[in-house]
């Protein structure tokens, strides 16, 4: 605490001398950076706000006239594309009058994340909440009951699809990863251990793109003749198998970090393997690896964007498609900035949460 008070008492000039100008080298760096930052900020503000175009006129048939944007293209942003295209970017080809359904799904997902992040809800019921939420999302997205018109999968897209791929992917991949990690640590079952090692190393050996290509090409071949394998399902399965291999390694690190005495004590109490694993090992091992687990979650949230390469309309693909519309061609950076903000919001929230949790767990461990 003393250092904070000391800092508060120093005058700004002393602070600047200590932190910005403490040597000729530091002074040079400060001046150079300040010059660069001011120039960049000046340019950005001019582009994004001062010279930006916020709306464009529409012709009688409703077609937008992007001439004002074209006129300002070199100097100013064309934010008119956002009100014009945000419904498409967020929900892609989902029927326009039904788009409240995917919107509600996004809200449900965010609520689900918020509930899962709260340590008070870390109980067995959380699993049920996840299953219930995913069920409601499926109901909303597909429809076909309760008077909701049926919407086939190929019309899904945008942000809800990204969230489905990430959430369902992790919800299935995580239990699988725990099983694989346990299998890889198993000493009593060498054959199962070998199987898990082969699975993890094989999956981690090639990039996700390669697996997505393989899934879309190979899964239809795997099926008996006449069975149609949906592209979205193929991508989802590929993401699950891929994520499980990486998560398994994180879980394994937690299992390894747990002192052997815990397992021996459980044996001494006469617990069976699954009792021991469920009651003693996993609760402690998983708690040890929460920060790297969240980092892996962040990675996979970002990686869901790769499905656009096999032609699935996730958030990123919807954004790039919106820019490909002839009147709006050339205004990619505005849309990319919007998408970056959306992805950033989700990932940054997760990483801040993980950092906070890490500090909290550190503190509780020290007591």
């Amino acid at each position: 605490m003393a250092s904070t008070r000391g800092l508060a008492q120093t005058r700004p000039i002393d602070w600047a001398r200590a932190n910005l100008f403490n040597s000729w080298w530091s002074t040079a760096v400060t001046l150079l950076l300040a010059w660069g930052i001011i120039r960049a900020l000046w340019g950005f503000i001019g582009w994004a706000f001062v010279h930006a175009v916020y709306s464009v006129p529409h012709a009688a048939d409703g077609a937008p006239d992007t001439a004002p944007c074209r006129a300002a293209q070199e100097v100013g942003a064309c934010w008119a594309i956002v009100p014009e295209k945000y419904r498409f970017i967020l929900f892609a080809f989902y029927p326009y009058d039904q788009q409240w359904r995917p919107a509600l799904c996004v809200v449900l997902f965010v609520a689900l994340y918020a509930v899962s992040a709260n340590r008070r809800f870390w109980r067995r019921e959380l699993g049920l909440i996840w299953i219930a939420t995913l069920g409601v999302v499926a109901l909303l997205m597909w429809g076909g009951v309760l008077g909701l018109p049926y919407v086939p999968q190929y019309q899904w897209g945008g942000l809800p699809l990204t969230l489905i791929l990430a959430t369902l992917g992790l919800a299935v991949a995580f239990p699988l990863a725990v099983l694989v990690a346990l299998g890889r640590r198993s000493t009593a079952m060498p054959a199962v251990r070998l199987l898990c090692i082969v699975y993890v190393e094989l999956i981690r050996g090639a990039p996700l793109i390669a697996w997505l290509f393989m899934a879309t090409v190979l899964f239809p071949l795997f099926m008996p003749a006449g069975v149609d394998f949906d592209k979205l399902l193929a991508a989802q399965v590929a993401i699950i198998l891929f994520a499980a291999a990486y998560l398994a390694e994180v879980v394994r690190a937690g299992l390894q970090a747990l002192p052997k005495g815990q397992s021996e004590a459980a044996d001494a109490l006469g617990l069976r393997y699954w009792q021991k694993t469920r009651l003693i090992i996993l609760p402690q091992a998983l708690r040890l690896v929460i920060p790297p687990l969240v980092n892996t979650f962040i990675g996979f949230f970002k990686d869901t964007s790769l499905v656009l390469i096999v032609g699935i309309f996730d958030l990123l693909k919807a954004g790039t498609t919106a820019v490909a519309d002839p009147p709006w061609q050339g205004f990619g950076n505005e849309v990319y900035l919007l998408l970056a903000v959306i992805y950033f919001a989700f990932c940054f929230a997760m990483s801040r949460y993980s950092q906070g949790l890490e500090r909290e767990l550190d503190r509780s461990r020290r007591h």
Partner: protein
Amino acid sequence: MAQVDLSDPRFPGIHAGGAPRRHVRLSWSDPRLRNVIWQVLILGTVGFVVWYLVHNTSRNLEARHIAGGWGFLWQPASIPIGETPIAYTPSVSSYGRALAVGILNTLKVSAVGVLLATLLGTAVGIGRLSRNWLLSRITAVYVEGVRDIPLLLQLFFWYGIVQALPGPRQAFHPVAGVFLSNRGIKLPQLDWAQAHGLALAAFVFGLLATFAWSRWADRRQARTGRRPLTWPAALFFLLVLPIGVWAAFGAPFHLDLPALRGFNFQGGLTITPEYAALLIGLVVYTATYIAEIVRSGILAIPRGQWEAGGALGLSRGVILRRIVLPQSMRVIIPPMASQYLNLVKNSSLAVAIGYQDIVSIADTTLNQTGQAIEGVAIIMGVYLTFSLAISSFMNWYNKRMALRER
């Protein structure tokens, strides 16, 4: 207290050390028998699923009249490839050659990417620990901001920037011989002569000699406490010697300058827009991860090391270079290896902006020939080789840097 029967199979651990092995009893309560049964069940299920998939696949391939085998590698490939490090003509060259081009393209972007990302990442990681407030803030903003945006989105952004450059006729022309346009970056290319090869050899020799000189200086310093000057030797070996060799062989110097002919440039060295965008994207993205690794590596070194260095009167730069970084290498190297692997794997995102790496070409091959299994095997083989190469190099380096305990 209840009597515990030590032969009870519920206490397998108790017999771990030297106890006589029990016979397997044909009873569900024997854990060893249970394990065998479980393994047979699991392997049986997995085996059945694999057999079922293979069976379906071979039936499906038969139905599509696709024969297995590697014969397609010698058939002419009708894949247009924009960037060919080795000679390749569509519809004439074979699929094997097309795949080789893909592998070389992956290598080309990965090798340069790893090098640049390491340099940028190390600089940023150290910068984030700087006592200069502005520098540490701006590097933190860069790391936190760039890390949380998907690489693919960043690639689109960079590709958009590169494509938005003016056409060849209005190309940016910062210095003579350098043109930046939407056709890529044009650089002057040196007409290679024998003298250049010799000068390069002299430079490599100079590097080794400088290294040897500084080792000698280290030993001398350890013995006498005085450090001989190293910069004159470095200057001589790295600058004077190569230039001297070059001059001695006639000092040939002819640059192939790019020049605007019609609608495009002729001559010079070309960096395609796709390659430039991919490289910038990979470097900027991976550097944020490397920066965090370097930062945590430096932070892992106890403060006492800094203070001890300060007490000896060393400057912060010298402490960092000669005391802290060599020790933090042990923390840095293992995660760094996995970041290098990530960069190599992420280079497969090239397909999104039209740079043809191995995954892109293998996928096209697979679609054109229908040889799905072989295409998958090729991709696996290539990446497995890359990961084995990188991890064995990093293991070797790690062993070299490891703590030698006496």
